[in-house]
């Protein structure tokens, strides 16, 4: 985990009215849950996007519109659905996942997968037309063509992953329901994220500390975007 980033942010907010370790622990939980969910979503989404980008099959348009609809799923509804699944009474009840990071990862996985699939698919389809013929003419196999297309589409795929990450780290509805916004008594987060911490401050009418946490969240998202975009640019230059 990128430990340096939370530490720097903690120093920025050194004079905040929070207990020691509070902010760094909620940043850690936010990143842990969102990054894990986005990595899993990417592993799940990319193969789907590749298959849909290269193969034609009946009902493809329908699958596409299902994925596009998924981009608009309200996070609260996803949270409720995951709650039913992991609750003691639900199908996964025996695993004791309610109010854990694992349950939060599940709901963010559901939320992040549609945008990552849809945007990756758009990127792959966009490249495919230009490059496929050239790669074929040069004697490439199907696999070669696919690899070339993926390489050309990597910037769009990075955008897809960032969009998924943005959706995951900024949503509050589902992680609040399935995570429970828990800290230990000494203020170390177990399932509290930046967004649920903001919601808690707002509930208590402490709008200024809520705004500070909001600023921390924006800085964090900016940093992650900056890092990914920079990687992408370096890749383009080579």
């Amino acid at each position, binding site marked *: 985990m990128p430990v340096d980033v939370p530490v720097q942010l903690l120093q920025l907010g050194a004079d905040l009215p929070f207990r020691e370790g509070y902010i760094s622990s909620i940043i850690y939980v936010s990143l842990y849950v969102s990054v894990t969910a986005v990595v899993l979503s990417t592993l799940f989404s990319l193969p789907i996007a590749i298959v849909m980008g290269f193969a034609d099959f009946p009902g493809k348009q329908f699958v596409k519109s299902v994925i596009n609809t998924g981009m608009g799923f309200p996070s609260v509804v996803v949270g409720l659905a995951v709650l039913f699944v992991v*609750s*003691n009474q639900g199908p996964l*009840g025996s695993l004791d996942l309610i*109010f854990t990071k694992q349950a939060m990862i599940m709901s963010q996985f559901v939320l992040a997968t549609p945008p990552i699939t849809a945007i990756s698919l758009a990127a792959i389809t966009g490249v495919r037309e230009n490059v496929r013929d050239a790669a074929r003419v040069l004697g490439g196999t199907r696999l070669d063509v696919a690899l070339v297309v993926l390489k050309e589409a990597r910037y769009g795929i990075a955008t897809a992953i960032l969009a998924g990450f943005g959706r995951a780290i900024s949503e509050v509805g589902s992680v609040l329901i399935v995570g429970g916004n828990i*800290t230990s008594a000494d203020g170390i987060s177990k399932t509290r994220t930046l967004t649920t911490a903001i919601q808690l401050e707002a509930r*208590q009418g402490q709008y200024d500390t809520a705004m500070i946490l909001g600023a921390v969240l924006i800085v964090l998202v900016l940093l992650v975007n900056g890092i990914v975009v920079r990687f992408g640019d370096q890749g383009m230059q080579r």
Partner: protein
Amino acid sequence: MTTQRRTFITAIGAAAAAATAGCSETYSGGQSTPDVAGETLTLTTTTSTYDTGLLDAIHPQFEDMYGVTVDAVALGTGAALEAARNGDSDVVMVHARGLEDEFMRNGYGVNRRDLMFNDFVIVGPADDPAGVQGMSSATEAFNTIADAQATFVSRGDNSGTHTKELNLWEAAGTDPGGDWYQETGTGMGEALNIANQQGAYTLSDRGTFLSQRSEIDLVIQVQGPIEGGPELLANPYGVMAVNPGVHESTNYDLAMAYIGWITSPEAQSAIESYTVNGEQLFYPEAVSENPDFQQYVPEDWNNDTSDT
């Protein structure tokens, strides 16, 4: 200077060593760590106990005593009981006796104890447009607000405070409605802010109002029983374990350990001495020479048994 500081640090070090020595002695007194060590107790509770910081202040004592972790999930009273109904928590701490009784009658909760109380207050703008200042009856104040059509902010979230407000309207014989009655569906802090922005009246628990008083212009118009107001505005908190006969997976023994601890003289005095901005927020009521047997069962339970 330097020498002094060094002496001071040495003193702190010695004190820490002594404290730690004390701890390890206590622990090594038992031959092995207790079996419950490392377990987690899930407590669903209301926003008013959690947001005042009370639980964070007193829980370390319980956690150290048993070597366990308490996961406190703050929800409205309705949602806290619903999570327990689904077997997702081990123990509940809420403040709506009617809902608690229903929960027990349906078999989900056992071993209920009265825990502590504070009271509700009717707050409103300082200029008091409806003229309820200092009324000795909560229902009369509610009716006056309704007659004046003065703006009233309702929690509208099935929380303990919302339930209390609805009971008060019912007792007043008024069915609130119209432009002046606004349901917000938010927590107490937000509801107070909304009432503050609109110059409206609202019903608040005293703890949340006190902890937010410095940031808003609302004042207490009708006091609760702690300051000599009507008994109707009392706000008692109860704690109970989830019935292991309904949900096998519940951590019943740890839940009972928690209830035993929080109703003990030690924890009760910790509750009593907990203050925010110099004000006491909760009044313990679990320890008594003459226990009230009604706390263990739904209210009017005797009548029920004689009926059936």
